[in-house]
């Protein structure tokens, strides 16, 4: 119960009015409360969260008998971000460029799965199904990309991306329809659909599976994407996985996301339903239809993410890759760290993209830290980020003397009687 916190609520509403506050909490869905809370923290809190996560991970590195500072600097070098420093030159610059291309390739898909989760959050839904939606998108992208090989490149690419987006949308749409029609909680349905998608993929591409590559009968893998469906590489050698145009498609999707949310009637409805379904139906909105629409859009983002990976650099889909992929869950961390905003998602995706690349076998100097171990650092930091999101909710509660998250909705400005008077005139 710190007394130094100026609390507008108390001052203007006369103290507590415990009732007002509870009514407020009750009228909000829990994802909406989380969203509102997250948005309130500004840029400082996520940066702090990241720093703490790195600090904790650094302690773990120390415990394994390595030097955290040199490990982190090796990871940083592995991300290729040192390419941005003008003083890096020569062979070092060439390597850095290759590594940065890797980082940005990872970032591309992470941006899109991050959007898939963030969009749902803005509508008051938890989309835990990014993984399944991504998998369905990947299955369709690789299937379309590897068949229809006679098509002109542009049409082939557009078709593959569009159908992957549709597949992801359809998969998420199932959860949306189940929620709208039968009230099935989307957390349950999306998690279950993840498993259905994963095992569907394994079935399709396993040895003897219907879509397994017949030319490699002993490998459980899809056919390879045709040249006409591969995304053009614009930076670096295509043979060494240079950077493809997927990053621009992802950034375009970020713009689409921001425009839908902030500028359109659809976004307005989605946010209203997300914050308060009762008020939304009072406004004449169809709450159930909105659940379906939101999930469709989320799934489309995840499907495009998969298309970017498949058409950009993977070109084929291995069954063990389907089973081991964690990208949908990284998307949750990206959305949470990015505070469900367009810019935040890009920044958080870059962070995780850089971590994945920086700790990879290919890029991390094994004499400093074993890449096999380092990869777990990424997932540890991912876990810490999600965990810390909940701890700063607790921290805020403690700071505000046990008053709930709802307080976080109140605009964080100190008592400024003057501004109140101005606006009252």
């Amino acid at each position, binding site marked *: 119960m710190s007394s*130094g916190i100026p*609390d507008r609520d108390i001052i203007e509403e006369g103290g507590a009015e*415990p009732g007002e506050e509870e009514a407020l909490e009750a009228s909000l869905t829990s994802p909406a409360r989380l969203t509102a809370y997250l948005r309130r923290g500004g840029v400082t809190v996520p940066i702090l969260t990241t720093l703490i996560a790195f600090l904790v991970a650094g302690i773990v590195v120390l415990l394994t008998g390595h030097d955290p500072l040199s490990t982190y600097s090796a990871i940083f070098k592995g991300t290729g971000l040192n390419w941005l420093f003008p003083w890096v030159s020569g062979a070092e610059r060439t390597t850095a460029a290759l590594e940065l291309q890797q980082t940005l390739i990872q970032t591309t898909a992470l941006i899109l799965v991050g959007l898939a989760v963030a969009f749902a959050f803005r509508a008051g839904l938890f989309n835990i199904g990014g993984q399944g939606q991504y998998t369905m998108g990947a299955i369709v992208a690789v299937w379309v990309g590897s068949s229809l090989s006679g098509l002109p490149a542009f049409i082939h690419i557009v078709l593959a991306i569009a159908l992957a987006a549709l597949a992801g949308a359809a998969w998420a749409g199932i959860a949306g329809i189940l929620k709208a029609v039968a009230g099935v909680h989307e957390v349950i349905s999306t998690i279950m659909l993840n498993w259905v998608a994963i095992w569907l993929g394994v079935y399709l591409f396993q040895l003897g599976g219907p879509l397994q590559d017949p030319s490699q009968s002993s490998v459980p893998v899809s056919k390879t994407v045709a040249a006409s469906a591969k995304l053009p590489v614009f930076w670096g050698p295509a043979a060494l996985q240079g950077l493809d145009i997927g990053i621009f498609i992802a950034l375009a999707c970020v713009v689409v996301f921001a425009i839908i949310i902030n*500028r359109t009637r659809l976004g307005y409805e989605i946010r*209203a339903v997300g*914050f*308060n379904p009762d008020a939304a139906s009072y406004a004449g909105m169809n709450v159930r239809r909105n659940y379906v629409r939101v999930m469709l859009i989320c799934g489309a983002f995840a499907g495009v993410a998969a298309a970017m990976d498949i058409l950009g650099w993977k070109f084929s889909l291995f069954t063990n890759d389907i089973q081991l992929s964690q990208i949908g869950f990284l998307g949750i961390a990206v959305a949470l760290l990015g505070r469900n905003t367009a810019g935040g998602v890009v920044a958080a995706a870059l962070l995780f993209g850089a971590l994945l690349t920086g700790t990879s076998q290919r890029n991390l100097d094994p004499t400093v830290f074993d890449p096999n171990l380092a990869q777990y650092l990424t997932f540890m930091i991912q876990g810490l980020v999600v965990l810390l999101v909940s701890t700063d909710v607790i921290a805020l509660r403690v700071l505000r003397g046990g008053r709930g998250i709802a307080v976080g909705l109140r*605009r964080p400005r100190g*008592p400024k009687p003057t501004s*109140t008077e101005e606006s009252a005139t």
Partner: protein
Amino acid sequence: MTSSPVPGSSGAPALELKGITKRFGSVVANDRVDFDVRAGEVHALLGENGAGKSTLMSVLYGLYKPTEGEIFVDGRQVEVDSPATAIKLGIGMVHQHFMLVPVMTVAENIVLGQEPKRAGGMLDFAGARARVRELSDRYGLAVNPDAVIEDVTVGAQQRVEILRALYRGARILVLDEPSAVLTAQEVTELMGVIQRLKEDGAAIVFISHKLHEVLEVADRITVLRRGKRVDTVPREGATERSLAQLVVGRDVLLAVDKPASKKLGDTLLEVQELHVRDDRELPAVDGLSLSVRAGEIVALAGVEGNGQQELVEAITGLRIPESGTITVGERQIAGAGVRAATEAGIAHIAEDRHRRGLVLPFTLTENIALREYRRPLFSARGWLRLRRMRDRAGRLLREFDVRGGGPEAFAAALSGGNQQKVCVAREIASDPKVLIAHQPTRGLDVGAIEFVHRRLVEERDKGRAVLLVSLEYEEVRALADRILVIYEGQIAGEFGPDVTEETLGIAMTGGQASPDAAVTA
């Protein structure tokens, strides 16, 4: 505090707050407030939203640490650093919103936290039930210890809260707006309970907005305004007018200055033979018919839970009626949904502004657009017209004198009265034919109530049809041109505005109204 002790009590007051100051940053929520209450006395705490009543009680209950000031219990100085300490000192708090576990029984809720135990750590349920029964008999608090909380009425839940405080040994009882959630009948029962507690020697702090209740139950009345104690007055000699003046700091029109309805126009809202079921699929509105003409305020009076909610939801398109017609002007809107109702010209000041009327994390601009966002005014081809939304919000906020933030402020940041002004502004601005006002002044302070009432009369005079659904007798009488009483989903009588509370009360509870009270319209 120099008021003379209440006859029958002597010595130090049961509770005394001296010079309580509570600052939040640079803002003072309580400014050197003195307050005391004696055993066997009811001391009312009166003030507008934001006057500092709840802050003061939070200090008393150990939720806030006072910046300055002292607290005495039975003349002994104490430090209340947590609710647990407050309970130990015999201070009990009954919050406006109950803190009960819905799936547990009355007895379980009451003993929660201080369960009677038998040897071996087992709970002594029989003992708990017996103790609850003993307490409830003693104070006439009719509750069944074995009933599950979610099945009992709001009034009963409140009695459980009171019993819980008594069970924990409270002798100083703080009732925070206890009547806000009760029906008229339950309020009467509550007053009886308070009387018995008082006779038994409890010291009671009674917090309320409602002047007539305070006058009915309190021995002394302390008025807070902007964090300061304005005055403490004995009940004798106090009137609603004098109290209202203390609360607001100026003269208040308690009765709305309402000229008789000028001229009645066409029938704008016509409900015929309407049947609506509630959430449990039970008939809530049962063959109800009513009509409201342009230029009149028709009040629908009744005890809560007699179908008002379902009727309003059916008219505003939120609920699909089973059968019957609802006509607005020429248009048939029964079961056609909210959008059709809005387009036909229905505006709806919702009963619960937090649950329904506002999206609290939205800005005021976004909230003002809530009901009309689809109209070309605010959007075209799926795009929002943000500047127009903002302009409209700015204009309405000025016109309706909404304080506490501009168009970009969040609705959650406003006080209750200002939030309600936003709702009223939005609904009126949509230029409706029919204005449905469902409990439009619930939880508002005197000043805000006056404002809402004045606007409703103005809209009537502009030729709108106003249907007021209210549980407050004063409000119904002050505003209505005609009063319809709803009982068990049917219209149980029609009265003029000069009807007595008694007659109305009888009709509202299903009794036969005396024939001379009925108005032949």
